[in-house]
């Protein structure tokens, strides 16, 4: 009896975490393939590992927030701009509190613990305020989360740019600039020493796991994401929960903003965190969070982030030329489509003989896919490879359509 029960429990655990096992396995496969095709992993394994973990942690910090918002049934599109805005706030506080030299310019080489604390606390407070604004727009005004956070995505970056110019104009003698430099070395270690972001990420992940899996509030967040009307009618204060979720989303982005600013020693809102919101959402989705809400795990999100960074890094290593940043978008876009499509297909496994290339849409889609792959192959390998890939995909697509037609026993009747 006991044995049967523990057996069932193990099976349940395995079922619950099948997504994570899959991700872990894929990560290992990607790493092995990269090691096979590129010497970088073989020559400097430790350095590469540290760099991947550092990058993973920076992305992971605010992916946690994105995951919590998604599980609760919402979406936060603002994190990229919140990162830029928070960086600007953090750097500005440091600039304002730093000692001044004879010319009247702040000296940011040696800031000390008091200033760090003030800057970090101030930035987190701003994150809290942004989250509160989102929650108010969504619950009290009744905006869809997409609209409320899209407005912040556009607005906050712009505000940060103006803000940085005003701050530099009033605090320095050099006049308006678009960036704030922080020369303090200890501060920059926050973003550059590999284990510091890692520790922050792991600590936050533990707290997020505790919140989502072991507290009443966490369970209520899942319930609200799964069925908001039923949650309200169960006596759950959904407005309060949304406030919490969006604050966590914004505050984790604020922490990431501090770390990214520390990493480069600069607050440069024009480019900082640009487009990162989609990376965070992608990591959560790849990690198993459903955009419909109510589904997802913190452990899955952690692995989703790691997976995303490993693939980006591996492509950069294998391609060897061009900057990895340029390819990041392609990879993220591809992985999101793949992960969500995979989940959809797994759920709709009823064997209804789904057609991937129906009608005229199918024909054009085959062309689009072949064109895309051919272009990518041309850029990364060469013209001939591009032609070959293009041709192969056209043939494969045609074959798939042909099979569809054969498998349909009864041709559609035309009325």
């Amino acid at each position, binding site marked *: 009896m006991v044995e049967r029960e523990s057996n069932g429990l193990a099976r349940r655990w395995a079922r619950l975490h099948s997504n994570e096992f899959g991700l872990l396995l894929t990560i290992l496969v990607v790493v092995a393939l990269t090691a096979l095709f590129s010497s970088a992993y073989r020559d400097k394994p430790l350095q590469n590992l540290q760099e991947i973990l550092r990058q993973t942690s920076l992305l992971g910090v605010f992916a946690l927030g994105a995951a919590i918002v998604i599980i609760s049934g919402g979406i936060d599109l603002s994190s990229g701009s919140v990162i830029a805005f928070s960086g600007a706030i953090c750097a500005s506080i440091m600039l304002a509190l730093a000692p001044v030299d004879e010319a009247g310019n702040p000296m940011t080489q040696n800031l000390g613990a008091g200033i760090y604390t003030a800057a970090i606390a101030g930035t987190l407070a701003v994150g809290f305020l942004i989250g509160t604004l989102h929650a108010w727009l969504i619950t009290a005004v009744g905006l869809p989360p997409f609209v409320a956070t899209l407005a912040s995505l556009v607005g906050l970056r712009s505000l940060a740019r103006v803000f940085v110019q005003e701050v530099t104009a009033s605090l320095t003698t050099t006049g308006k600039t678009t960036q704030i430099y922080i020369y303090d070395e200890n501060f920059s270690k926050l973003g550059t020493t590999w284990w510091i972001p890692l520790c922050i990420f792991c600590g936050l992940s533990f707290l997020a796991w505790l919140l989502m899996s072991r*507290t009443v509030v966490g369970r209520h967040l*899942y*319930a609200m994401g799964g069925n908001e009307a*039923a*949650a309200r*009618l*169960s006596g759950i204060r959904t407005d309060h929960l949304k406030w919490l979720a969006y604050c966590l989303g914004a505050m984790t982005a604020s922490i990431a903003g501090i770390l990214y600013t520390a990493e480069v020693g600069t607050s440069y809102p024009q480019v900082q965190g640009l487009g990162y919101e989609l990376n965070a959402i992608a990591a959560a989705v790849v990690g198993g969070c459903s955009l419909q809400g109510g589904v997802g795990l913190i452990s899955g999100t952690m692995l989703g982030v790691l997976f995303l960074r490993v693939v980006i890094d591996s492509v950069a290593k294998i391609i060897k030329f061009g900057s990895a940043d340029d390819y990041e978008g392609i990879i993220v876009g591809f992985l999101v489509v793949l992960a969500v499509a995979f989940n959809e297909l797994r759920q709709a496994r009823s064997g209804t003989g789904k057609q991937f290339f129906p009608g005229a849409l199918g024909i054009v889609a085959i062309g689009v896919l072949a064109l895309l792959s051919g272009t990518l192959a041309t850029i990364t390998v060469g013209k001939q490879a591009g032609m070959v890939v293009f041709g192969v995909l056209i043939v494969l697509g045609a074959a798939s359509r042909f099979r569809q037609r054969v498998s349909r026993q009864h041709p559609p009747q035309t*009325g």
Partner: protein
Amino acid sequence: MAESPLIAIQQVSKRYPGVLALSDITLDILPGELLAIVGENGAGKSTLMKILAGVITDYEGQITLRGNTVRFASTREAENLGISIIHQELNLVEQLSASANIFLGRELRRPSGFLDQQAMDRRAGKLLAELECHIDPSELVRRLRVGDQQLIEIAKALSLETGILIMDEPTSALTESEVARLFRVIQRLRERGVTILYISHKMDEVFRLADRIAVLRDGRLVEVLARRETDARKVTHLMVGRELAETDVSSPRSVGDVVLEVDRLWLSWPRHARGWRLEDISFALRRGEILGIAGLMGAGRTELLECLFGASDEVPSGRIVLDGQEVTFSHPAEAREAGVALVTEDRKRLGLFAEMTVGQNITLCTLEQSLRGGLLSRGLEQQHAEGIVSRLGVKTACVEAPITSLSGGNQQKTIIGRWLLTQPKVLLLDDPTRGVDVGAKAELYRLMDQLCRQGLGIIVTSSELPELLTLCDRILVLCEGRQTGEFSRRDATEQRIMEAATMRRVSASACAV
């Protein structure tokens, strides 16, 4: 059988993962007849009709239409061959006008290629007039009453020159006069030679309309009877496979003191001609008493329960006294803390958390009881959930099973269990047996009776009068938001309740026209 069948269903089966929804059905449908299809919930009536109408496309077996084997890949193909279905949940685009819905997908166009709105409105108006539906064809569907919406579906079917019309429980949301109108329409359709398949579980309708009655049970065709040669008792017997067990909940309960008192409750209805959802409702509920609330669709039953639970959109005026204390709830959380529980009408949309397990669904409202050191304890949670599962007899493999693996009746018990853990003083049940089969209904009745005897005050609504008559100590009748009758168990009859439930105000009905 002299006539050759219009549709011959031959050995049709439909399998869902783990369930055989239809098993080897063979049934002939004759031209021009009205065949009633009856059976309990889950007997397979709707599944069979969906196959006929091209909604469900993968099944085993064969269907012949006028002698030709057919296999529809979509509803469109079925419609082209003259088969239309009117679903129980109507299938209209509420943001579009009546005529746009009637011609949806087959819009009339001018030679220039643009829509010919006038022609569509004109033809829609003619079709609707034939159906005694006197509405403006350019009116948006969401502004229309359910009965008129249904006639739009019928008009759509007529515009397709449908020869076979499938109606899935068409009267479930209609008022009496709308039902009478629908029956006249059905009569007219039959005169035009339309074959009608009529799904229902209401015996009076079936015996009034049908030529033949096909009884389904557990996915099998039990028997096809000619109406003249049978009676309601026989058909009911075939449907449930046994005589309807009179649930013994009638032995007198001892009623305690007043636990809930409602005094002059008004609930406004902004931007609506009527102005009030509820007008001047007053009643009292005692401990150990089941109070039934009867009324047609839209009478305000759900709204009344929502008011008592702090879940209504507007704030009601009037006094609500719970256990001697006047209360005003602005959120269900406050009602829950004060000891009021609401089991909602629409289980799937407003009650269940489909992604969660049975256990998580049970403990959701009372997670505080499962805390150990501020954190949730799996063990405590499981203990509470298992307590409810055994107390209410929920049939589930274990508390870790997904809630969606349970039958409707057991899901309902799970939700009642969720609320029992909050130790309520008053339990509000909004149509708790909706979508629950007969066997499970009897179990729910016994459960309510048992809870009531433990001193709980229960308010229950139902769309089925016999249910209220068996269960309740008193029955309150609502009509268009007003309290139009109150009957004790002794005085209550279906006749009297229906009279009260249709006691329209003269001015109101004048407004409606």
